[in-house]
């Protein structure tokens, strides 16, 4: 099932990028999609981590949430930058990721980095080291709201 969905996704991607719809070229695209899937299987990357299609359903609600978080924190950093006093209080902290899979932990680490004002600088096991531009950003992560949201996105494993 996962392989079929990977082939389908690759073929649709090929169609969208090529813009040619003659039978000959579409067949060539289909063949390349299948070859890519075979290569991915041989490389051992056609797994839930390489093609996490099982997350698609929950991604539909996670994506708008993370976009809103990004917009909110980008605006907060913007206000800091245009403030003549430049009110920064750089803080580094460590937070624990409650996700079970490495895919979940990567999602959490990337979500932290995507929201302006916080950057994941290191990952060791389930502990993330984070640099925040203001102290509140670090404390906010320590309180674990985003961690819980990402764990919900990861689902039951």
């Amino acid at each position: 099932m996962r392989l079929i969905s990977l082939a389908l996704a690759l073929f649709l991607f090929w169609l969208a990028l090529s813009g040619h719809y003659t039978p000959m070229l579409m067949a060539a695209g289909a063949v390349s999609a299948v070859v890519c899937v075979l290569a991915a299987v041989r490389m051992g990357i056609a797994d839930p981590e390489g093609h996490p299609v099982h997350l698609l359903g929950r991604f539909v609600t996670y994506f708008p949430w993370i976009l809103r978080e990004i917009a909110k924190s980008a605006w907060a950093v913007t206000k800091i930058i245009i403030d003549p006093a430049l009110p920064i209080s750089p803080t580094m902290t460590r937070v624990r990721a409650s996700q079970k899979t490495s895919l979940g932990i990567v999602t959490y680490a990337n979500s932290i980095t995507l929201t302006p004002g916080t950057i994941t600088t290191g990952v060791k096991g389930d502990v993330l080291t984070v640099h925040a531009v203001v102290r509140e950003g670090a404390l906010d992560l320590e309180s674990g709201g985003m961690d819980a949201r990402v764990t919900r996105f990861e689902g039951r494993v």
Partner: protein
Amino acid sequence: MIDILLIGLSWALILAGGFFTIVGAIGLVRMPDVYTRMHAASVTDTLGAGLLLLGFMLQAGPSLVLLKLVFLFVLFFFVSPVATHAVANAALHYGIKPQLAEDRRGRLDADTREPAAIEEELRIEAAQ
């Protein structure tokens, strides 16, 4: 009528994207060290690039170009945090110390020793 609205909205988005791109650039100059500068840069590649792309999408209308802009947006979404993390991690490894107002990295130290570190301690204990 709809056309005028769409064009107006797309211009508003493009101008807003431009504003955040410039803010990111200003922050890049004003911030004191590598790590805080990266926070400023992330304003550019999230809200700046995002709003610009959204404005371009409205200009493109329903077409293949629109789809390709969506791909670009997705690419930014997945690649920019990875690149940011790589730069921050590299800077730390290189030994560039962040200027901190507060260092709270010790808060999880007590219970997060690496397995290797624990093994090392046991070996020292056994030797004594």
